[in-house]
């Protein structure tokens, strides 16, 4: 079934859906412009704006539900953004199941994280600025998912990049943070090149860049064109979603405050790539090669992320690794076409919940441990911070796919879809699940169980309510979210109008053979982790470890590779270029000037001051003249 047709819409809550973006944007503007004056109440404003946006989203959602399934793709024209010769971009919002589910996730989880941050950033002098950036991010992210054309998406795309840059580098006095922020932006820019290129090709192919004007016509374009478009877009997606080969920035991004990691680098922004692929499904479906590449990227990343996760002692880095890996799953699913879209989005939302809850949990732990991130200095925290322990635990169970929890439904859905599509992919996905089981358990046990390995002078305590409540709410989501979305193909049916659907819906069964196999593999990983990190004592300094361990610790040498391939040559190129500019081009010019001056200096000497030599010159001049005259005259 093709996706439903996109129709104009005006009035109603949907007509006012632009408020979703406008409110947080306004919040950001106020907080940034009023400066220190709004320090006291700034954070509240930020939260209010985010919540308001959430409310609007909910209202829009219900109005959308109210419409018939086939008319759930509404475009709200805002204004004539870019009228030019042949390119004429009208800025508008596309409200359909896909975009609204993202909007809900962003505003919902976003608001929770806003609230959490009140507590987390309580002691930071620049809290106001922090909330301004958070609001800015929410606005940009919403524009990304709500825009009805690729240019709007692109603007939001780089907008979230900016927000992420600002938030990663929020503690600017830390050079490491500044560097990480810059790295994130630049690596993302590489991806953005791809996205821009994709947009160019889309425009030159269809003469417009609105979804309505392009996606339905995808069939009319040649496979080659579609492949080109898809691969270009995929490059963009890789940048934003930290997929191999553009994954390197995500781990460094953990330099930012933990709520940022939760909101941007776990729950929302990094999933933008998945959104892009699903949104542009029409192109990918026309280009099987591109789809294959997507799935491969997905699998590679999910394994890479998992492996990295196994070796990290920094709790946030470990979680970042797992984020990479989970998004790998989503990518894999998104590469499977309509069969995978629903489950991909479902996993995305579920992941939004449990990963956010775990990040915030980690934040709560760090909060308790004086910002200590090294898990080897944790241990036995379960007893002192109960709520964190429970909520984190639920999230942990959800991600490893403990039966009936979110991850169980969504991830298995992906694995099964992959199996049907291609055995190899499927088994690799299972393997990934196993590793996930291992490293998440490792993380969980190292943090909350085993011997207390705290620094002296550390007195962990439960975090304040403003931080724990969001944890609780999120953990609820991470428990039931998956089941809610998957059972009865809810997500599938809901998304169908937006992304289309294959003829027969996938059959959902609570227990499947593949499910059991996966479960077994996960169990093995978890148990092994418990043996090594739960029961056995964890050394306070990391052992040297095998070659494999170092390989994983060094992020699979991703950075080393970038350095060798791009940074070093780049530095050389720069030096050479600067030298060439000064000595080469400028040298040439100055050299020419010098040459003329030199000639002049030497030529002056001819003017000896002896009158007879002047007479001589006249004499020869006359001779020359006569000679010349005869020559010319007798030609």
């Amino acid at each position, binding site marked *: 079934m*093709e996706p439903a*047709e996109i129709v104009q819409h005006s009035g109603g809550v949907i007509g006012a859906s632009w408020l979703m973006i406008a409110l947080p944007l306004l919040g950001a503007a106020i907080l*940034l412009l009023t*400066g220190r004056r709004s320090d006291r109440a700034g954070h509240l404003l930020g939260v209010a704006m985010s919540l308001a946006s959430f409310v609007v989203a909910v209202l829009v959602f219900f109005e959308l539900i109210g419409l018939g399934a086939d008319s759930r793709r509404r475009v709200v024209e805002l*204004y*004539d*953004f*870019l*009228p*030019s*010769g*042949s*390119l004429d971009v009208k800025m508008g919002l596309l409200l359909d199941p896909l975009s609204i589910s993202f909007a809900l996730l962003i505003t919902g989880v976003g608001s929770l994280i806003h609230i959490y941050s009140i507590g987390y950033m309580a002691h930071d002098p620049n809290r106001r600025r922090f909330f301004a950036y958070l609001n800015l991010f929410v606005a940009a992210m919403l524009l990304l998912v709500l825009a009805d054309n690729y*240019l709007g998406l*692109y*603007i939001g*795309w*780089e*907008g979230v990049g*900016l927000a992420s*840059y600002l938030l990663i*580098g929020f503690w*600017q*006095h*830390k*050079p490491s*943070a*500044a560097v990480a*922020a*810059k790295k994130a*932006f*630049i690596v993302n*820019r*590489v991806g*953005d*090149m791809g996205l*821009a*290129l994709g947009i*160019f*090709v889309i*425009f*030159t*192919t*269809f*003469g*417009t860049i609105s979804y309505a*004007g392009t996606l*339905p*016509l*995808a*069939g*009319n*374009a040649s496979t080659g064109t579609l492949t080109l478009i898809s691969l270009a877009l995929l490059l963009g997606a890789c940048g934003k979603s930290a997929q191999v080969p553009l994954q390197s920035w995500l781990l460094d991004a953990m330099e930012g405050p933990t709520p940022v990691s939760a909101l941007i680098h776990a729950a929302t922004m990094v999933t933008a790539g998945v959104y892009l692929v699903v949104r542009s499904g029409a192109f990918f479906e026309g280009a099987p090669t591109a789809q294959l590449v997507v799935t491969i990227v997905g699998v590679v990343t999910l394994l890479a992320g998992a492996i990295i996760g196994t070796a990290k002692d920094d709790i946030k880095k470990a979680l970042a690794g797992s984020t990479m890996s989970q998004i790998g799953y989503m990518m894999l699913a998104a590469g499977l076409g309509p069969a995978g879209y629903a489950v991909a989005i479902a996993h995305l939302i579920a992941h939004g919940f449990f990963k956010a809850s775990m990040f915030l949990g980690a934040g709560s732990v760090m909060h308790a441990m004086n910002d200590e991130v090294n898990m080897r200095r944790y241990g036995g925290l379960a007893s002192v911070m109960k709520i964190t322990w429970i909520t984190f635990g639920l999230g942990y169970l959800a991600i490893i796919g403990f039966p009936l929890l979110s991850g169980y439904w969504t991830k298995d859905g992906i694995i099964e879809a992959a199996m049907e599509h291609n055995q190899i992919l499927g088994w690799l996905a299972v393997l990934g699940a196993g590793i996930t089981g291992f490293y998440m358990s490792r993380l969980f046990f190292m943090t909350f169980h085993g011997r207390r390995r705290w620094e002296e002078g550390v007195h962990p305590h439960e975090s304040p309510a403003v931080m724990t409540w969001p944890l609780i709410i999120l953990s609820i989501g991470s428990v039931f979210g998956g089941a809610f979305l998957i059972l009865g193909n809810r997500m599938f049916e809901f998304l169908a109008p937006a992304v289309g659907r294959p003829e027969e819906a996938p059959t959902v069964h609570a227990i499947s053979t593949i499910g059991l196999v996966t479960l077994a593999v996960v169990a093995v990983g978890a148990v092994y982790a418990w043996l090594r990190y739960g029961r056995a004592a964890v050394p306070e300094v990391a052992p040297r470890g095998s070659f494999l361990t170092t390989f994983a610790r060094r992020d699979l040498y991703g950075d080393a590779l970038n350095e060798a391939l791009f940074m070093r040559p780049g530095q050389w190129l*720069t030096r050479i*270029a*600067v030298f060439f*500019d000064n000595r080469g*081009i*400028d040298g040439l*010019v100055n050299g020419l000037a010098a040459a003329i001056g030199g000639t002049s200096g030497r030529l002056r000497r001819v003017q000896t001051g002896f009158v007879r030599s002047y007479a001589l010159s006249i004499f020869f001049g006359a001779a020359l003249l006569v000679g010349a005259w005869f020559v010319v005259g007798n030609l």
Partner: protein
Amino acid sequence: MPWLSILMGVPVLGALAVAAVPKGNDRLAKQLTLAVSLVVLALTLAMAFQFDPAGPRDQFAEVYRWIPAFGVHYAVGVDGIALVLIALAVVLVPIVVLASWHDADRPDARRSVKTYFSLILVLEAMMIGVFAATDVFLFYVFFEAMLIPMYFMIGSYGGAQRSYAAVKFLLYSLFGGLLMLVAVIALYSMAGKNTFLFPELIGVIKDPTAQKWLFLGFFIAFAVKAPLWPFHTWLPDAAAQAPAGAAVLLVGVLDKVGTYGMLRFCLELFPDAAKFFTPLVITLSVIGIVYGAIVAIGQTDMKRLIAYTSISHFGFITMGVFAMTADAGAGATLYMVNHGFSTGALFLLAGFLIHRRGSHHISDYGGVQKVAPVLAGTFLVAGLSSLSLPGLSTFVSEFLVLIGTFERYAVPSIIALSGMVLAAVYILWMYQRMMTGPTAESVKALPDLNVREKIVIAPLVALLIGFGFFPKPLLDVINPAVKQTLTSVNVTPFAPAVPATAEKKGAGQ
């Protein structure tokens, strides 16, 4: 009402008045200059509102015979392109005046303050004139005469290397200008119409060889002015040595005369030659984009760095001009305006920093963000506009240029895309080195922007953001003019691979 003559007359009279201010009274001179520039701004806005985008090509036209013996007229008039560029100039001037309030009266230099400001006003008149001229000769006159005030602003009020930079700037431009003079003369005698009026010279030169030579004559002059790689090396010196205000006018407006000239004269007077040389020009532009960016990364002096970024940006503009598509043309024109604002803001902020710290070496700064958040913030915004972040006006123009170029020349456009990444590198790296990290001892006491400086920067930031989200007003003015230009070049308009008629079918399924 002779709008344009008034626009030129007011600053000239203002300059005389400022020059006549008694010696001791610098403050009055400054206030007078500011007032005059604001009056000009107001007049320009008044004129702009009466401009009819759909109207005839040269509006507010005035034509008087100036030197009948040479067929020279005092002929002015504006189309959309000229209008926005004039607007750019008159917006920047008051900002520059306010920004360089204390630039001229450094204690060490015993230089006349009022001269500096009257020079600015003279320059303003000439900037308006050069864009308004619809007589090739008149354009040339302004084109050359403009050099002199700028020459003195750099030479008398610039940094340590000022006289070298000033002479380099003058000779480079003069050389190009003289080659153009030959072309102008040849154009006149070949056209044989005994007039220099631009409209009457369009399409007159038919002979392809002649076109090529004349094109080169004009083009080299403009390429030096713009500056296009490899004619660029004067710019870093000039921009780095000039006082911040002068640098803004130099890079922001004067250099635009080059790209404007390409769009107006090279394309329309010699269309065939322009098409013939397009591959060459596009290549140079792409080289300039990448090369300028890479060299910018390697700079240690912030003003030089900004200058090199401009070289990269001018690459984009020339590429857009010679792509000869409606989108690229509009984008290039818009780029000229936005680049003026963005680079202007960068230069001014750099000027503020240098004024405070007394050094233009990036390495002498660090952690400024902590002590001067507003300064750092605005600097970041300006920087982001320079790397053309979406939501800022520079993005719109760069996007248009790239997509417009892509319509006809895919590969150059793709290579140019890498400029996006490089831009991120040079801007963010500079920001990281100067603004972040632990606060350097030398800048511990660095004061944040004062009110005057905030007033200077605010409008620029506002314009960058405003036109970033709503470029329509500018584009509506520019588009018809660009179309007009392209029609006299007569290039085949771009058509998508999948015709729109297929939409019905596709949607129907």
